[in-house]
Structures are given as C-alpha cells and as structure tokens.
C-alpha cells in the first residue's frame, strides 16, 4: 500500500476529500517529526512506540578494500510494535 492508496482509503473511512486527507496526513507526520526531534516518545495503544535512539560512533571496515572508516554518532528514529500487534501478526504466519 503506497501513500496514494493509503490517503485514498483514509479519505474513504473518514469521509473527507482527498486534499483534506493529505493535509491531515501531512499534519500528523509533521507532529511526529517535531516531537521526535525533541526526543519525545509517541506511545499509541495497540499500535506501538515511535521513538528516537542514539547510535554511538563506531569504526567500520570496508570488507572489499580493507579501508577503515569512522562512522559518526547519529540519532535514528525507530518503531517498536506493541505486544498486541506482534501477537496479531505472529498468527498470520504460514
């Protein structure tokens, strides 16, 4: 499901026009990014947690050339699905 399909479905469900829905999605995404920038955690019951993690600096080696690189520290957004959601999809397993 790509972004277009997603907004179309959301519009259908919320009984909004497509442009309104895109506005809605954009606003939500903006809220998330702003909050994540402030190191906040977004806990959604039944869905999961959106949070940021600090990755420490490290030395990596290019296996081909043997060149060693120092990778700087960085902050990475991450998602942790809730236990409920995890279990739900575990059942889908063939």
């Amino acid at each position: 499901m790509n972004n277009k399909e997603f907004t179309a479905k959301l519009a259908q469900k919320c009984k909004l026009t497509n442009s309104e829905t895109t506005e809605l999605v954009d606003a939500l995404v903006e809220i998330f990014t702003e909050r994540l920038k402030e190191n906040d955690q977004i806990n959604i019951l039944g869905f999961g947690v959106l949070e940021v993690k600090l990755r420490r600096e490290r030395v990596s080696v290019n296996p081909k050339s043997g060149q060693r690189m120092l990778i700087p520290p960085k902050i990475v957004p991450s998602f942790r699905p809730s236990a409920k959601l995890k279990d739900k999809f575990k059942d889908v397993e063939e």
Partner: protein
Amino acid sequence: MDTKLHHSDISSLLAEKLSLSLSNSDIYTRTFFDLIIEGLEEDGIVKINGLGTFKMIDVASRNSVNVNTGEKFEIKGHRKITFIPADVLKDKVNQPFAMFEPVEIDDDYVDDEPDNEREYITENKELAEKELEAFSKNNDKAVTIPNDVEPIATTIDGENENMHPVLLQQHSDDNAKEFNNGERDEKYEKKVVADRNIDIKIDNYSNSTDKRKSGKKSIYISILVIFISILASIAYFSDSNEDTAEVVNAVGKKDKASLLTVDDTKKKVLVQDTIAQVEQKKYSFVLIEELRSKKLSEITLADTTLYDIEGDLAIHRVGADETLVKISQIYYTDKRLWPYIVKHNSFRNYNQLEIGMNISIPKLVSSK
C-alpha cells in the same frame, strides 16, 4: 523533552494544528493508525510520505540455546513488523549530528612534521644563506654575522637557555673582540675543519667536552665554544651540503682558499645531482611502462602497510582531467596512496593541482 506522548496528546495537537474539533481529530488519528495495521494485514507494506515504511518481514526459524539450562530449542519462524524511516525524517531527527561525516582512518599517513616546524626550518635556511652572502662580500666584517645569528640561536638551542644571563650579555658584547683575535680563531678553525667530515652531532659533542676542559681557563674560550655549538646546531637543521661552509664561515675564517674548496665540492655535488635526476627521469618512464603491464591483483596492498618515502620516483607533469587519485593509480597502481604524493610535495590544499604543474612522485618503500 523525553516525555511520553499518548493518543490523546497527538489528537489534541492535531486539533490545534488544523483547527478541528477534539472528537473529530481523535477519530482521525485512530483511523490513521488502524489503517496502517489494516494495510499491513492486506499488503504487508504501508508507505507514508515523510514518515517512512512499515513492512512485514519473514524471520526464518533458527536454533537457540537456553542460557540458564543449556537446553537447545528452536525459535519458530514468524513474521515481524519493521519500520524504515524516510530520509526526510532521518535528516530532521539527526540534525544535532548533521555536521559529522564518516572519516577515512588512514593508517598510512603519519604527519610527523608539523607545518610550523617546517616553516621554521626554511626560515633558518634563508637566514643562513643571507649570512653566507654577507660573509662573502666582506670577510673583514665577520663580526656582523654572529649578531644576526644570535636571536635564532637562542630560540633553537636549549643550551643557551641554560646559560647564565650575564654570560649571554658578555657573549654578545665580546663577540667582536673574539673574532678579531687571530690565535683562538685558528685553533677552532682547525678543529672544525678536522671535524668537517664527521657527523655534526659528534662535532657538537666534542665541542661540549672541550668546553668542560677549557671553561676553567678562561670565560672567553668557553663562550666561543658555546657559540660554535650553536652554529653547529643551526647547521644541523639546514642542508648537509651547506653545513661545512657555514661552520667554517661562522668561525670567522679569513682564509679564502678553504672556502673556495668548499664551494667546489658543492658544485660537484650539484652537477652529480642533476645528472642523477636526468637518469632517474629516463628510468621512471621505463618503470611506468612496467607497472602498467602488471595486473592490479598482483600489487594489492593491505591498508595496514606503512610506507617510507625514499627519494623521487619520477617527476610528473599534470595534464588535463588528472587528479591525485589518478596519478597515484598510474604510478603505484593503487589510488589509495595519493596522500603520499601530497605529503611529498607539501601541498597545503589537496585541490591545489593545476594543469602543467610539475609534481614529484615519491618512491615508496614499505617499512616494517
């Protein structure tokens, strides 16, 4: 900061942003997240612009061991939700560390000579050359030279710092008398000339031993010895070719003949150098051809190998569309060795390369 936001917080923020009613925004956010779960169920992938991708992936079953009991058991294959953040989100979140970039750790390149020091040595060289000129113009006014030299000498030589300030003053005052004093001059000329072929270090050492013996006899001699040692130290810093000339010059030699012989030897060395250079140029072309015929795999180098620069391999004229990397590829068949070329040519800026520039390619010998 570090606060936990829940569903209600998000919906209230959304309501504020789009000026919606709270109940409406609550429904919208709820359906937003529900739809993500729904999409995952249906397609296994949900893309949202600006946020990222939620994706289902299959994890194969694997064997594991219970750490406490040592029992072996199988972790069954299952499906797992992953989230791949969009680049926009990544960049925005990573803004505090945005200025960092991965750095190549170069084991090969060792900057053992700080730039300041290099400048300093060249400065000294220039001064020494000036000194030489001044001396050749008026041999009788040798007195002027020591005064020129002294300020540098005090900064380089540790010995002078240890010297008593009173002694130092005397040293500068009495220089004039000292250098007109023929007998003592000749003594030290002989010494220096004898030591000419020996290493400067040894020269320095012998002078300092002399200093102990003669120090008791008279202060003047001791001062002179210190002065010679200072000059020797200057000579040590500058080219070895100039060493002998300088030392002889500094002692205040009035004998033109000896100076001339020094000049002759210098010329000879220069001529030999130029001949060697020409031969080396011819040789370098052969070398390049040889290297080109070799396969790359034959000359692969571990990145832990260190190289010493040993003279010039060739002199290269920079053509159009040539970079340091390309040049190092041509000569060493390894593009990672370009820092050595930079080091050898003492470029300030790595982008300093210009078309038609002559750069010398160092000969690299692996050091162990």
